[in-house]
């Protein structure tokens, strides 16, 4: 009980953290500090609360009736909530500290207070989403989250790109909410109540319909392909710490919704898991393929978030399949892996967005191909970025590997060993995951190599930057988290198994993740790898002959005038892969053919537009804008005309009723 009140206090502190600053002057540094302090206090309180509740056997809950005619104020903190609450209380608080250096209120008097307020509201509403146990309360929190995210992401609303991205986000998120309203209505029809608790048996067809609506409604938020349309633009145009929170935490609210709904529904048919596996594979491969083709630092990171959502989807699909086939090992590995990946992604993606912010802060551009050689100016950021990049490529010994490893082992288990029947079609997802992994390496080597390594591509570039400690410390904390979970994934097992048992009631207490996937070996091999690297360095150092005899320029084949412009750019690095996956990407490439003996200056340009948004959604909207105005004749803006419409419709309905069709 105490922990629920603590969480309410935490939500209030976090959610309203920006309020005091609104009363102070727009340039007030004190105001921003108060905001950050409130965020920190609230987050510490929230983390304390989830630590207390994770120790309790019965999940703490609070139900009170309220003033609205529907639903009630029902909240509970079970182990699934705890897993999703942890990033909600960690990432926004770190982002708030980061904002002290990155988005100084004194430098942004127009939008600093607005951003601070909605940033806190976003974090608070996400915490409320995760603990709500009533459809109406859930939808209210969901809508506050969507609106707060809109205002936080469009802080720079004097920029038309930002406004456009904001509109697309607003439309997409409300289509999703519409599906959710339909889903909860169906849920009410099926169970007779708005309460989000496991109810009496629901008919299979109804459950299937609820599942599909949940996939679409929550899929818009999570960013499943092809519902991801809002994601790249919104993430690219938001301030970096808002992008970090949106990508690291808010997308996971969509995942949370799917996990929560499937926990309450009876899963008996395999098509649920199959559907999610297919969605996961498509989202993962297409997401990373689009990421490789991007030229904008933050758009690239946004597409890579879509890829990671795909990986989480693969894990969830495996778990759903396990429930329908009654296979505890699939459930444990699939759900455990995907929930651990939720944590991991919130750590490394926030880290990478913070890094991106630091890069933009120094270079004032998001164009990858205009950057280069930043490692010399920002060595700390570069090391932190490298940690994030290795982690997101799921390479050992960092955390991305631990979660993907669980999913891999689960997928291999679907082959069916011994007497157990298998589901070998699901094992194909392991091959897709391998491909995603290899493409992620390509994508992040491109980013690391083009942005930080080599020499600056713009000769006029001046990357001097005054990175304050308030920007470095949050990044270092996240990087430490990546290394910690990567080397010691065992610490998360207790929580993951508890969540899996809450999710699938048929799990008995005999099966455990560690019996099928011995994570202590990951620790051992991770440490062995670090030791081996250390040993080789030591061996090379003790070798008496190892010495640098000369520093010189990069070997240039004897060409006398090398310039930084002959370096491989990000686009040229990605060129082969973009061409190989052109059937998804449809890149637009413009270049002038060189014709004469003394050709004039030539230009080359390549763009990878978003296939769904730019080639499907926007043309449809444009066509609608072109042809539908004819209907506007109905909208005359005169009240008596609308009353006439009502009368006509009532008469039609009366006639309809009288005929009795």
């Amino acid at each position: 009980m105490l922990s629920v009140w603590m969480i309410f206090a935490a939500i209030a502190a976090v959610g309203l953290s920006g309020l005091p600053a609104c009363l102070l002057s727009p340039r007030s540094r004190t105001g921003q500090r108060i905001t950050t302090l409130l965020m920190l206090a609230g987050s510490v309180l929230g983390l304390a609360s989830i630590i207390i509740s994770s120790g309790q056997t019965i999940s703490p809950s609070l139900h009170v009736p309220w003033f609205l005619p529907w639903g009630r104020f029902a909240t509970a903190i079970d182990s699934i909530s705890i897993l999703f609450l942890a990033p909600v209380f960690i990432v926004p608080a770190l982002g708030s500290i980061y904002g002290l250096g990155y988005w100084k209120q004194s430098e942004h008097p127009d939008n600093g207070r607005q951003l601070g307020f909605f940033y806190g509201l976003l974090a608070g509403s996400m915490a409320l989403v995760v603990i709500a146990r009533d459809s109406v309360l859930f939808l209210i929190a969901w809508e506050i989250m969507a609106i707060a995210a809109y205002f936080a992401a469009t802080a720079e609303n004097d920029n038309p790109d930002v406004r456009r991205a904001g509109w697309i986000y607003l439309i997409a998120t409300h289509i999703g909410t519409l599906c959710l309203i339909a889903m909860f209505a169906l849920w009410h029809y099926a169970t007779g109540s708005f309460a989000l608790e496991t109810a009496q048996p629901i008919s299979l067809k109804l459950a299937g319909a609820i599942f599909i609506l949940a996939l679409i409604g929550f899929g818009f938020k999570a960013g499943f392909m092809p519902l991801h349309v809002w994601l790249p633009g919104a993430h690219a145009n938001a301030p970096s710490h808002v992008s970090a929170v949106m990508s690291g935490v808010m997308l996971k609210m969509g995942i949370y919704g799917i996990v929560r709904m499937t926990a309450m529904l009876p899963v008996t048919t395999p098509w649920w898991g199959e559907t999610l596996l297919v969605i996961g594979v498509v989202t993962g491969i297409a997401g990373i393929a689009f990421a490789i083709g991007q030229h904008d630092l933050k758009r690239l990171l946004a597409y890579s978030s879509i890829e990671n959502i795909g990986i989480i989807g693969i894990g969830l699909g495996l778990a759903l399949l396990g429930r329908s086939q009654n296979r505890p090992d699939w459930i444990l590995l699939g759900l455990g892996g995907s929930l651990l990946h939720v944590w991991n992604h919130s750590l490394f993606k926030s880290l990478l967005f913070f890094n991106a912010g630091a890069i933009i802060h120094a270079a004032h551009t998001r164009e990858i191909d205009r950057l280069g050689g930043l490692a010399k100016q920002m060595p700390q950021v570069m090391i932190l970025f490298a940690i994030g990049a290795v982690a997101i490529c799921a390479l050992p010994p960092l955390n991305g590997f631990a979660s993907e490893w669980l999913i891999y082992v689960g997928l291999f288990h679907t082959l069916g060993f011994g007497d157990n029947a298998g589901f070998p079609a699901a094992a194909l997802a392991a091959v897709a995951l391998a491909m995603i992994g290899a493409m992620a390496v390509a994508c992040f080597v491109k980013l690391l190599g083009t942005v930080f390594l080599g020499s600056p591509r713009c000769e006029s570039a001046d990357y001097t930057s005054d990175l304050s400690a308030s920007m470095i410390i949050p990044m270092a904390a996240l990087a430490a988290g990546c290394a910690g979970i990567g080397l010691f994934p065992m610490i998360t097992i207790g929580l993951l198994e508890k969540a899996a048992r809450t999710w699938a009631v048929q799990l008995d207490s005999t099966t455990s993740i560690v019996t099928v996937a011995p994570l202590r070996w990951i620790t051992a091999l991770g440490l062995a790898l670090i030791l081996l690297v250390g040993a080789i360095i030591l061996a090379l150092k003790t070798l008496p002959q190892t010495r640098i005899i000369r520093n010189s320029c990069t070997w240039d084949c004897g060409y006398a005038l090398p310039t930084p412009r002959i370096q491989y750019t990000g686009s040229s690095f990605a060129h082969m892969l973009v061409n190989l996956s052109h059937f998804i990407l449809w890149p637009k490439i413009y270049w002038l053919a060189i014709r004469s003996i003394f050709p004039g200056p030539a230009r080359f340009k390549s763009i990878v537009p978003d296939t769904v948004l730019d080639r499907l959604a926007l043309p449809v909207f444009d066509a609608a804008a072109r042809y539908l105005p004819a209907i506007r004749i109905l909208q005359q803006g005169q009240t008596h005309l609308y009353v006439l419409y009502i009368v006509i419709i009532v008469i039609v309905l009366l006639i309809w009723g009288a005929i009795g069709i």
Partner: protein
Amino acid sequence: MIEKIIHIILLLGLPPLLLGVINKTKAWFGGRVGPSLLQPYYDLIKLMRKGMVISTTTTWVFLAGPIITLATVILAGLLVPLGRFDSPIAFPGDLIFFAYLFGLARFFTTSAALDTGSPFEGMGAAREVTFACLSEPALFFALLVLAKVSGTLTLTTMLHGPEGGFSAAVAAPLVLIAIGLFVVLLAETCRIPVDDPNTHLELTMIHEVMVLDHSGPLFGVILYAAAIKLFVLGAVLLHVVFPFQTGLLWLDWPLFVLELLALAAVIGIVESVMARLQMRHVPYLLIAAMLFCGFGFILLVR
């Protein structure tokens, strides 16, 4: 214990000899005497005694590339059983760790190449990461087949196969993945027809071009790591191709070494009788390898 020590000695000592055998075979095909079988060892010793020239453009990543690569291939070598003998480290799911170790090596090799800021090395890095996107799925198809056939997720027991050898029913999938794995081995170890380890024409190379700026001991580490990688992937392939054992301890170690040298000779023959593919045709070869492994999987689970 003795087995583990022999395993480590072979893993660290034998790989350069494979390069020697390949070169000798190629020389024999070309009608030359060729360098001594031990030449790769001499080369390594020579490189270790030299100084390094380091480009001013580079950062710590340039140094980390070779070192991390060597560490990962050694660790991968400890996960693979040699011949009849168990590997020193084995646990369920180690096959994924094995595959991802090569991913880590690739990350740092290609980053080190980009660190120099040279367009040639950028080219090589781009090719390396692109081709990996095709060879990785092939490898995982092969691993799926092997896991299904043997009923285990531990590399050691998986590669040893079930008691009494593989049944005849799985012969077709195994043949298919053996072909696929051989192509993956050629691609990953940068041999003809994917890459030519001998040319210095940067525009046509993958691996050699990424290490243009490494010199002295660092270059030695790179060559050594490449040899170990060949050894490790070769050891994996041999389990599929030669599942025969004598059961006699004193005979099985020499038998394994002999098999490995024979494999090196086969690679030498392939290098002698084939030309390097055009760069734009390499993806077709890798997709073919992926399809071979994929068909093997489909045949198995149909």
